[in-house]
């Protein structure tokens, strides 16, 4: 995403949270302002016109799949990365869903190994999230 667009989105979010919200006295309307500010900040990280974050996420999903394959999950043909990273993501998530259902049939140590990877993956996602509605 172009840096100017990021600044724009960040600015809208900041204005809603800091300039508009304090002056809105209806509680429902005020919460709407805060939700909008939070959402804009989070959307800025993933819009399609910025494919790099999607590719980065696809790489993370591939790493999860690779650990599952090492644990015995059958290999499938690598999804085509082109033309759209979002299509590749859909294919990766579909295979991960099947692999993670399969995981429940595996011995406990295998499950624990994969679950540790899932926890680490979640920690990465949480680190990039912003919160504003419920502080």
């Amino acid at each position, binding site marked *: 995403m172009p840096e100017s667009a990021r600044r724009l989105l960040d600015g809208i979010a900041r204005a809603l949270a800091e300039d508009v919200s304090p002056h809105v006295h209806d509680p429902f309307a005020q919460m709407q302002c805060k939700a909008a500010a939070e*959402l804009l900040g*989070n959307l800025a990280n993933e819009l399609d016109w910025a494919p790099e974050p999607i590719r980065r996420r696809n790489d993370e999903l591939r790493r999860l799949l690779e650990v599952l394959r090492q644990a015995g999950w059958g290999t499938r043909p690598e999804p085509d990365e082109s033309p759209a990273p979002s299509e590749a993501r859909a294919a990766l998530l579909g295979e*991960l869903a099947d692999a993670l259902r399969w995981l429940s049939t595996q011995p406990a140590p295998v499950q624990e190994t994969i679950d540790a990877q899932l926890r680490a993956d979640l920690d990465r996602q949480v680190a990039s999230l912003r919160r504003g509605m419920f502080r």
Partner: protein
Amino acid sequence: MGEGEDVGGGLRSFLARQLDADDLTITGLRRHIEGFSWETWDLTAAWTADGHRKQRLIARRVPEAGLAAPYDVPGQWELAQALRSAPGIPLPEPLWIDAPGSATGRPLFLMEHVEGDVPAPWNTHTYFRDDAHRTAVGRKLVQILAAIHAVPLSSLPAGLRGIDDLSPTAEISHFERVYEQSREAPEPVLERAFGWLAANADAVSGHRTLVHGDFRIGNAILRDDEVVAMLDWELAHVGDPVEDLANFAHRLYRGKLGIPSGLLTVDELLAAYAEEAGWDVSLSALQFWLLFNDVRSATLFHVAARLFADGDTRDLRYAAFSRQQPYLLRHVMADLHPDA
């Protein structure tokens, strides 16, 4: 004309008909913004009938887009009527029902307003006078929970979810369908969790009762140290009663004290329930349903996102939830390996 004026006018006409009181007026109409389920309106009605009468009321209206659809107003009404005759379960008196939704455009029912406080789990460390007070309220809630679980199934509405489904994991199947219908794409952690629940279903308790579905301190009204009403029955169903204990102990509701509903430790909760209900809940059953409650919460965030994406609501909070999934998914992973 704003939404409040529409609803207020509709409620005034409806109540005037119910009470045969043309002079009925409504004051203090206010919509509650907390919660993401029923649309809740607070109002005071005044009218003449053997003198001047005045009553504060709560209207529960089918929401524009709620997280616990379908909203079955006649079903909730029937459940409330059934529970009024069951011992030990305090709840607001149901007063009037508009099942067709002719009063305000959507179905609703009205009930008495119950005075009191609804403590939040994150305030229990300051709300109560001391540990003994907090523990006593926790035990009273457990007594009510045991009373809910003792309600004869034969007295419940025929349309209540799970009443005809003998599978101990019917509620999990229900929410798995909700997840599959609302998700934009498979969520790896939820796929893992649903798989685990299916593979470990022998952990259920084997008991089958009425389940409140959202039993916790935040759905209780307290007054003078007593629990005077349990609210929010829209997730009620028939299933494993341990599901309610797990919701009481949900990580979201542990507050600053880090204990179930900010009231009792897990050991205290299980001991109190064993005393009241007459049977022991195993830790493995509690852990199983704790995981389910995490999964259900995360699934409801998917529902919120879908409602917004489909244009069913313009409430931006629903859209924001779509990006907050990882926080809830961390609870899923924590309860998958509680000793990790």
